[in-house]
């Protein structure tokens, strides 16, 4: 199914010169530590804890409402140290995800309300099923379907996931338009 056109109220949203669209009712702190590459959509009540450590988000990422991104911490010499969180390009996060991961690679789809434990790593082209809980310090290989609590690899994603994710994320961004604009609706 094609993704339909989504309209938004321009007064509630801010657009940066790199094409990022951010809802003004966000919970982003420590903005000097956050880098968002461009063409990303950050919806209402998304919180990014940039005050703890640096957060880098790639291009064409979609963070739906209620997502919470918090840098992970690791113990060095018995003292916890906050580590940077890196999120790749074309990552789609559904509503209410709690991300405490150390790294999410490109073309990853996180289902609604999933919880990513401290310091976990998700490699490219993977999909996390809705409601799964990933325990801390786990690593998942590319092309894995992850699900369950505690989450495990329960299947494989199609090998052309990279193309599908690029298509879907680009389509979502292009169809996300202000209310008053006249995007030519073809249907």
């Amino acid at each position: 199914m094609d993704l339909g056109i989504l309209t938004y109220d321009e007064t509630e949203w801010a657009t940066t010169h790199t094409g990022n669209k951010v809802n003004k009712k966000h919970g982003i702190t420590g903005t000097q530590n956050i880098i968002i590459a461009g063409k990303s959509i950050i919806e209402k009540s998304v919180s990014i804890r940039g005050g703890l450590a640096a957060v880098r988000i790639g291009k064409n990422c979609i963070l739906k409402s209620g997502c919470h991104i918090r840098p992970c911490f690791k113990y060095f010499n018995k003292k916890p140290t906050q580590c940077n969180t890196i999120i790749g390009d074309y990552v789609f996060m559904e509503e209410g995800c709690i991300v405490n991961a150390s790294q999410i690679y490109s073309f990853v789809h996180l289902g609604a309300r999933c919880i990513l434990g401290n310091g976990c790593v998700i490699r490219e082209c993977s999909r996390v099923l809705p409601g799964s809980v990933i325990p801390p310090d786990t690593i998942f290989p590319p092309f894995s379907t992850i699900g369950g609590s505690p989450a495990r690899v329960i299947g494989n994603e199609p090998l052309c996931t990279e193309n599908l994710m690029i298509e879907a994320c680009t389509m979502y961004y292009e169809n996300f338009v202000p209310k008053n604009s006249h995007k030519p609706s073809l249907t």
Partner: protein
Amino acid sequence: MSALLQSFRVKYECSCGKFRNLSDLHFCRQCFKIKCEECACVEIDMLYCARCLEASTVPEARLKKNQCFNCVECPMCMNILSGRTENDKFFLICQACSWQTREAGIEDRDSAKKWPVYENEITNEMNDVMNHMKKLEMIQNAPKDSKNRKISKGWSAHHLPNKFGLQSMVEKKRQMMFPDLTPLSVHEPEEPLSLEEELENRYKSKNLRTADQIIRQPLASSDQPLFPVRVPLQGRTSIRCDECERTLVKRDYGVVAYKFKISAFAREYVPDIRISRPVQFENDKTSHVLLTITNLSSSPIQLKISPQEKSRDDLVECSTPPVNISIPCSIDTDTAGVPAEKSDVIVFRQHNRIGLNFDFIPNQSNEHFLALSLEYTQNGSFGLLADKSQNTEEASSKVLKANVIVQLHN
């Protein structure tokens, strides 16, 4: 991503007759056939541990019994165990269920590797029997081997004086061909527990175990504690066409590689059909479905879409006549989104996408499927990719066919 685009609603027929998602299919450029993983040859490309992403060679994997020696999983919840230190000694803890190696009665160790596992009690006996059988095989094959050797019958090393140590060499070789056999003691089978007794034992033990836990450690009896489980190695696969044996999909070198050396995904050769908007059903009245067709290949496609006749109860009856269209390839992206020529069927053209409107009458049941058959030709680069022995022109004008079933209901 297939979940977001709901690609499961459109199924393509593979050359083996099964209907699958387009993203799961491959296209053989030499046989001009759609192949799925079941009808193509799937080969193991590389063995690796899915927990630490470390590759291992085949002999190494065989030596390790196809298990990773560095990673261990929790016997309770199958999550990876992580090491902790206390007084310079290691123990393992599961971060999901808080199970510890101390609970299994394993003492803390000096190194975080090499945790005990249950071994089969008769492993040594089995090895002895295997060695014995190998010796027997050698004796059985000895006459055959000596026949194959080209030595004249008249000559024998036995006649040589043992001056240069030749005699002992020959004797050694002879012994290798006819090894000494020491008879093995007969294995005495033990009386196995009856099913009732075993179930009773299991019920009596304090910790009832799930079937998963028992299957993962079959050698642990019900009164023994469960030990950490070694992680089984996984195979990364490459796909080869079963007819022409050409590689369809091969990933780059490296466990974590996600790019491909060779890839022939069906969506890059076959027109991609998708439902554009949710379908509104009106009972016994003509309803409409808007399908978008995308050409993701590198050459323009001449396409003929014709609805199939109602052969099953769950199929809907489509009144739209067959449609002939040409779709430009994704490189020619000059055509901006415009409402198309005056036609009831073609709704819009945008770059390499075309929107088509199909009329159908819903059937009585709750399930509605629309069956379409596609006939398409591609020219340009597609023909050049064909086998050189074939005529290029013939290959480029070859009419390819595909059957599609579209699930109209949610």
